[in-house]
């Protein structure tokens, strides 16, 4: 127990390290004092004492988590696996019947693999098409970037185009500013505040 507590204290920081270290470093007299002081006599001087222990919190938590996750995942999946393997023997390879297009999961060998492919995964055809779609998008944007760079290079080289551009903005503030300015102009010219 003392060996375990030394290990625990080493892993739990300097605060826990003090007790075992002090037992090594202190002089015998001081050690006697510490040993006596570490036992609290809860009144009366009889046998009733309160012992001090290192914390068991981490170990309890670990056991709780193990219990929880085993019941959550390992037990249902294990039961399912056992059921499938009991009710399905070794799968056999069959020729594809005439005029029949197998679903994509029917190419997997084990029933569990088939179920996982059916329920949780995209089909290989879909993955293939998705990948090609991403390639298409990347290639299009690369083409557009190249074209834009070329256009800008030609414009700066020839200098015959002013490169007007249009930015779609909300014109409400522009109108407001215009009205405000107009008001101020009218007030100024009406002679009221002169």
């Amino acid at each position: 127990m003392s060996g375990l507590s030394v290990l625990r204290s080493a892993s739990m920081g300097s605060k826990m390290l003090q007790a075992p270290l002090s037992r090594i470093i202190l002089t015998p007299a001081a050690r006697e004092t510490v040993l006596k002081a570490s036992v609290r006599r809860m009144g009366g001087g009889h046998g009733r004492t309160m012992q001090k222990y290192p914390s068991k919190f981490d170990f309890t938590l670990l056991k709780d988590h193990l219990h929880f996750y085993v019941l959550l995942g390992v037990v249902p999946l294990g039961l399912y696996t056992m059921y499938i393997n009991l009710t399905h023997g070794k799968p056999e390879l069959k020729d594809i019947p005439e005029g029949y297009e197998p679903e994509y999961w029917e190419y997997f060998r084990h029933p569990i693999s088939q179920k996982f492919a059916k329920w949780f995964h995209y089909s290989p055809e879909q993955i293939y098409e998705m990948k090609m779609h991403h390639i298409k998008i990347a290639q299009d944007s690369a083409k557009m970037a190249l074209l834009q760079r070329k256009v800008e290079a030609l414009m700066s080289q020839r200098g015959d185009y002013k490169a007007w551009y249009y930015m779609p903005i909300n014109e409400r503030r522009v109108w407001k500013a215009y009205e405000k300015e107009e008001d101020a102009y009218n007030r100024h010219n009406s002679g009221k505040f002169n």
Partner: protein
Amino acid sequence: MPDGEPNSQSTFEKIFKAYFGLLERPVKFVRENVVEPARLNKENHYYHRRYRRIPGVDECEIGDEICFYEVNKQFKRDKMVDGEVLNILRQRKVECGVYYGEDKKKYCEKEFKDYEEAAANFFQKYGDLGAGGNVIDAYMKQKHRLIWERRHGPVGSGMKATE
């Protein structure tokens, strides 16, 4: 000892069977009464996937990444299939050699020849490309080999001296 008579069992055999029957009988019971009836009407088969062939990389436009992707996928699949074929041939060769030992030169000639030929063909197509070699590398390799063969004759015959 006459065969097939239950009385012909020796005492040792009887004890032996009774003892191991402790393990065997429950297993047999479960197998015959639970597992096999449960498996009766279950469909349990899988199919072999065959991919359609697509045209080679020589028909792709330059810079057509999608075409390249498809052809490269086919190339990698081909490489895997050819590698598996080669594995089987190698396994046959090794097993034959182990079985016949000293006589393998005499009895395993066909296995050795098949494997060497297949390995040479595999290396001719996929060799020297590395793990990341793609279909363009293989195509260029084939092109360079054809040019070399036009100049110097079949591979293995040695290079002609330049005039």
